């Protein structure tokens, strides 16, 4: 019987793998860059755009850390589905 919820760890992994990558300006700039040989980082992006990308990236990192912190402090949740991997 499908409840529409996660049934197992593999469901959870599948679900997480389907999460689209964060749409970050920094990633777009890295991918779009046509930097010359020898350069690891983009050096052709306008400075203002780079600043915007960096501020967004810092904010993204902070949100990730905050989410990770919240996950470490999660209280146990009684499940009504059979998911033995998370049994108490």
């Amino acid at each position: 019987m499908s409840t529409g919820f996660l049934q197992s760890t593999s469901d959870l992994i599948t679900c997480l793998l389907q999460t689209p990558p964060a749409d970050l300006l920094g990633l777009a700039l890295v991918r779009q860059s046509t930097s010359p040989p020898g350069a690891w980082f983009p050096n052709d992006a306008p400075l203002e755009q780079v600043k915007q990308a960096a501020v967004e990236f810092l904010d993204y990192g902070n949100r990730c850390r905050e989410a990770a912190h919240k996950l470490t402090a999660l209280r146990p949740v009684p499940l009504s589905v059979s998911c033995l991997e998370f049994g108490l």
Partner: protein
Amino acid sequence: MNDLWQMQSFLVSSMKADTTLALANCAAWLDPALFSADEFDSDSEEDDLTYALHVCRACFPEVYTEVVQRLWRGESALQLNQVICAGLNRYLVTPLQDISQIQYGVPFEALGLDRDDSDFRAQHPRLARIADWFHSDDQEPHECASILIKSLAVYGEKGIHADLAHLLGWLFGISGNTLVDWTEDMIWEGGIEPPEWTPDDIAFINEVQEEAHEMVSSAQRALEQLEQDRGWAQTLQRNIRLVRERKKPDDQPALRWQPDACHSPSDLPHPDSELLPVRGDPAPSDGGGGDHRVSG
């Protein structure tokens, strides 16, 4: 293109194609301080820069970004130092001169006076002259000044009365603003921790510093007024005498202050404020804006 460059080019292309590696590349490019240690050697110039980057990263992301991009462009330590100082100074009331200062906390300027210092009279002869009027064997000068400040508070937060209250607060270290009341030595010796590089501490010390500058400017206006207007000097001296001649500490002498020639009567909160008893009102500097004493 030689083999090494071809290999590097291949690696870069592969990194861009993989989301996780592209994200790692992005992190190294935009946020290199993420990977540096968060322990610093206060005597190392290199660590000054690393620490400055961490501070910028935590409190001033736009400055951090600019400095990081210049770092990748290979700018010199001196250039980076100047960019960081200029960037941080856009957010500070007391400017930073060099990134080596960052380890000592948010910069501030203590404007207080130490009347017990042997150099006080030589350094501040104009203020010493006013302080002499308060000299008494029976009463601490700051007690008398405190009573006068209370009597001046009812005249409002602007004008000569407020200026005079600020002058007395500054001269006797009773303004309520730590940067007005204490010298730098007093702050260090008093064990007051320097403000930390956090958004809250930065906002707080900026507010305290701005208020300190305003109060000292106001005090200097009063000093000029006392020097230029004999009437005001006599009024102050007479009121000092009235406070001293009280029979009991609880007595409330009727202190007279002349009206402010530069402010219209409608500016005054009390229509008959020429003759006012001492009240328990706050000093004008308090202004309801909160306590500006820096805690120890």
